[in-house]
Each structure stands twice: as C-alpha cells, then as structure tokens.
C-alpha cells in the first residue's frame, strides 16, 4: 500500500519536472521569437537609411551641401537642388497646422466638455471617418471642387484685400491659379484634423475630474477652465498629437500633388504653385533617366526621412511623458 503510494509520488515528481522543463523551453522560444521580431524592425529601418544614403551619394557628390540651398531643377542639364521641395514641404505643413490646430482643439474641447451626450458618438465617429478617407480622394476632390472654388471665390478676394498692405501683398500675390501652396495647405489641414482632434480629446480625458471640479468650484467659466487647467495639464500630450499630425502632413503625397501645381520654384506668394518632396518623388521617379536625376530624387527622400524622423521622435517623446504623468 505505502510502496505503491511512494512509487506514484516518484512518478509524479518526474512528470512535474518534465512538464516544467517543457514550459521553460517554450518560454525561451517565445522570448527568442518576439525578440527577433523586434530586431527585424530595427534592421529594416537601418536598411532603409543605408540604402537612402547609398542611393543619394551620386547627387551629394555632384552638388555637395549646395544641394540643400540650390533652386535649380533642370533634367536637361542634370542640375538639381532641393530647396523648392523642402520649402514647399515645410510651408504647406505649417499652413495645415495653422488651420488644423485651433479647429482640432476646438473640436476636442466641445466633445469633452460641452457636447450633449447623444451627439458625442456621432461626432466622434464622423471625425474618425475623416481619417479613413483615402488621400487620393482628397486629391481628386481638391482638384475638381476645392481648386476651382478657391480660384473663383477666394483668391481674387484675398488678392484685392491685401494688395495695399506691404508684407501681405507679396504673400497673396496673383494671378489666381486655384491650385497652389495655399490650396495644398488647406487640403492637408482637413486631412490631419482628425489626428489632432482625437488625440487631444483622449488627453483631455486624462485630466483628473477633481481639478476641473475645483476650477468650476472657484467660479471659472468653461473657457477659463480649459485655458488654465486642462490645457496646461495636457500641454505635452497635445503638442505630441500636433507633432504626429505634422509628421503625416510632411509625408502626404497624393492629395498634395493634385493641388500644389508641381512647380520647382520658391515663390513668396502663397497663391503660386510650388512642390513638396514627396510630390516631386511621386511625379518624377518613374521617368527619371540618368543616375544623377534618380539620385537627386533619392536624396530628397533622405531629407524627408530625416525631417519626419526628427518630428516623430519629438512627438513620441512628448506623448510618452504625458502617459507617465497620467499613470
């Protein structure tokens, strides 16, 4: 009787050891697999950077750092410069931010503080849907609807309104093309609006209710409470969201190339046609004949990569900080 009991215990212990070691092996395998997956991402990123640098070497050798400041873009003489594309990329994104940040914050404020409950869901869903519209649709809409509208009803007014004011007259100098830097900025603003609105809404929701109640308790109006309590508390997160949107605006291709006019020029007027880095690459890569031409386009890609990488890194860092704060 006891012998049998001892025997079964021995086999049980052996079973347990075997099971445990099997679990340990599975655990280690799992650990290895996930770690490999993570390293693969780093390798891909490194590979992209290396191939971009390698591809842009011929252009960098031919033009040196002057590539960044030259305005030439002449496939006939193989003379290329990145300035018009960089300028267009930065300016369109800035216009987009100028429009989308106030509107996006307004939407987020309305949704978290003022919106009647039954309306909250539909408005939120509508904003998420804006983000889901493919960029090519924005481009077509921009070309067929927005640009002719802007040419007929907005730009003539802007030109005549500012024509006597020194700085603004150059910013809004005609003729009204309809397509141009300003129109591209407006399209981008609509495209990045959902990012700013939904991220801001989420970070506004992290504000402890007790702070808001205290503000209301000492007699703050809603706008004062937003300005002095909610925005200071969530500043880092909001900036992070804006940066994320900016990263998207910088890299947007299809919608922009439809409405920006694709002209390699740095023009002080916002109504003039311009170009962006991604629009240039998308337009010209298939037909770029010759090594220097191709390499100049890859060089543009490298510049865009660096710009967006820096912007997104800052955005991530800020969002990380707000998460730590709310935790």
């Amino acid at each position, binding site marked *: 009787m006891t012998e049998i009991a001892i025997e079964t215990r021995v086999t049980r212990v052996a079973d347990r050891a075997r099971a445990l070691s099997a679990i340990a092996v599975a655990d280690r395998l799992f650990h290895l697999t996930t770690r490999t997956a993570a390293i693969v991402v780093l390798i891909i990123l490194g590979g992209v950077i290396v191939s971009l640098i390698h591809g842009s070497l011929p252009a960098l050798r031919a033009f040196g750092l002057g590539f960044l400041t030259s305005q030439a873009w002449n496939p006939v003489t193989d003379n290329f410069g990145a300035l018009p594309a960089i300028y267009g990329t930065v300016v369109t994104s800035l216009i987009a931010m100028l429009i989308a940040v106030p509107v996006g914050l307004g939407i987020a404020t309305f949704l978290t503080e003022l919106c009647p409950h039954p309306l909250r869901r539909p408005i939120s869903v509508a904003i998420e849907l804006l983000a889901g519209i493919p960029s090519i649709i924005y481009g077509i809409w921009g070309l067929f609807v927005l640009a002719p509208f802007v040419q007929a009803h907005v730009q003539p007014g802007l030109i005549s309104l500012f024509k006597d004011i020194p700085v603004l007259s150059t910013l809004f100098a005609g*003729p009204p093309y309809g397509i141009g830097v300003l129109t591209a900025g407006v399209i981008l603003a609509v495209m990045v609006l959902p990012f700013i609105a939904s991220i801001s809404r989420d970070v506004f929701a992290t504000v402890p209710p007790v702070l808001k109640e205290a503000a209301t308790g000492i007699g703050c109006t809603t706008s004062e409470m937003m300005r002095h309590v909610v925005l200071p508390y969530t500043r880092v997160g909001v900036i992070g969201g804006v940066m994320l949107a900016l990263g998207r605006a910088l890299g947007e291709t299809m919608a922009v190339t439809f409405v920006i006019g694709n002209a390699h020029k740095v023009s002080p007027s916002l109504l003039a046609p311009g*170009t962006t880095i991604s629009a240039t690459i998308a337009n010209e890569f298939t037909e770029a004949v010759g090594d220097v031409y191709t390499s100049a386009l890859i060089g543009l890609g490298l510049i865009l990569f660096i710009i967006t990488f820096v912007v997104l890194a800052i955005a991530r860092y800020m969002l990380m900080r707000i998460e730590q704060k709310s935790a």
Partner: protein
Amino acid sequence: MISTFFTRAAAAATALAAMAGAALALDISGAGATFPYPIYAKWADTYKNETGNGLNYQSIGSGGGIKQIKARTVTFGASDQPLKPEDLQAANLIQWPQVIGGIVPVVNLEGVQPGELVLDGPTLAKIFMGEIASWDDASIKKLNPKAKLAATPIVVVHRSDGSGTTFNFTNYLSKVSQDWKTKVGENSAVEWPVGVGAKGNEGVANNVANTKGAVGYVEYAYAKQNKLTHAKMVNAAGKVVAPGLESFQSAAASADWAKSPGFYQIITNEPGAKSWPISAATFILLPKDPKDEAAAAEALKFFGWAFAHGGKAAEELDYIPMPKTVVELVKKSWAEVKGADGKPLAH
C-alpha cells in the same frame, strides 16, 4: 476504386502541366510609354481572343520602359522618345515606330470654340516661356483677328512627370524658337519657366478643364475624350492645320524613315502643307539577342499582326496606323533579331 482515382489525378496533373507550359512559353511582357497604352491593351485583348497568346503591358512611362529593356527584364520596351542609333548599338537593341499620335495645345477660354483659336510655334514658345502672359497679347490677336480675346491671365499647364509627350512638345518648341532651345531645351522633363505641373495627360486635361485662362498640351485622344478646346496650328509650310487623322498621317509620311538608322525620326515640324506640326511616333524596343527566343518571336508576331490588322482599332482610339511603306521597312529591320543559332526569329 483507388486505381481509378489515381489515373484521374494523373490525367488532371498532366493537363495542368500542359496548360502551365502553354502559358509560360508564350508569355510576352512589355513596359514603357503611357501614351500608347490604350491601343496596346486593346490589341492585346483582341490578339488573345484570336490566338490565345497573352501580352502583359505595364504603362510605367518611357524612361522606365527604356530602363527595363536595357536590363532585359521584359520582352520589349516602349518609348515615345526614340533612342539614338549609338545608344541602340550600345544596348544591342532594335527600335521601330509602332503607331502615331498627335500632341495638341488645349485652352480654356470662355467664348472660344474648339478649333477656333490659331497659334503658331513662336507664339506657343513665348506663352510657355511666360513672355506672353495675357490672352489679349498682340501676337495672339494678330493670329486671331476675329476671336474675342479678353485680358485673362494665361495659366500655363505642363506635365509634372517625365513623359514622351513633353519630349516631343519641347522638341517642337526648340525647333521653332531659338530662345526656347538655349534657355529650356528638349527632354522628357525640363525646367519650366512658368506654370503649374500636372501628372499625366489626364492631369493636364483636368487642370485645363478646371482653370480659366489655362493652356496646356495633351495627346489628341485626351483632348477629344475630355471635349477640350484644342487650337489649330500654323505648320512649317505656313498653312493653318487642324489636328486629326489626315494631318498626323501627312506628318508621318513626310518623314524620311528609310534614311534614318534605327528609325530615329522625331516627326515634329515636318514639311508638307497638311502636316500637323506636333506629331509623334511611339517606338518599340527589342533586343537583337533575346534571352527568351520564343517570347521575342511571339512579340514580333504580335506587332506584325498589329500592323496588319490593328489599324481600325487604332483609329477608333484616335491613333494613326503607320503608313504602309514604313511598315515594310520595319519588317525588314526585324531580320536583325536573331536566335542563338544565328537565324532571324521573325517569320
């Protein structure tokens, strides 16, 4: 029971293998110019119905087509911009013109009907240089004494992507304007002095259609399909001509194909009272020593069939078939495509 299953499976497998073999042996692929894509696609469709052999054509642009055929990744390449004889020699390719089209200036002007506006080369060059900035300019009025031209600012629309259309258009402007030749030059992409860029023929067509006072240049087929206001041109003989089958064909016929090695002919500004000044041929490129002989032979068969039976389809899509005399010359040149045994592949 089991044995019947096996015989059936074996039969099915052989049938599959045979089908796959057939598909592989006659799979011809091409890549290049976007301009002839509609007609090549239509020909390929009809050809497949008649012979069962398929053609896969990717319209990635002339530059891409030249790159791909030089790398031998496709059976044939297609380009609106002919390669110079020495480049053909270096890449060991032959080249011939397959079909002709015309490039037309299109405008968006209120109260001006299609074919009403007349332009000549030097004026067109000045417009695209930005030297003529308004539609009521004296030089435009001189060509159009009867037209009502308001002081609308001219919005120049050009291609933003590299294209054979741009090559032929700028080649014409270089021929008629010394100024254009020295300042801008001819290429599939150039440094445009003024204007907005739009992607593809369809992009230029849409931009012109949507922008008041716009002027652009597109393939004739796009002008016709989008019902754009096309201009008439003064040709090299000093005559005013309208774009169309007759004027494109006249330009093609007046070119001296027989004396041009590699058919290197750009048929802009051709002589002849009826010639349309901005006509363009689109070319096919084929290796003289193809890796896949069966595919190359099939490609030659396909293009021969297109020369013989594809004319009507081409005209329906507003392309012009090559004149018969030129087709004879092209077919003679195919003898240069040889297999590994040194025998010509064309039949």
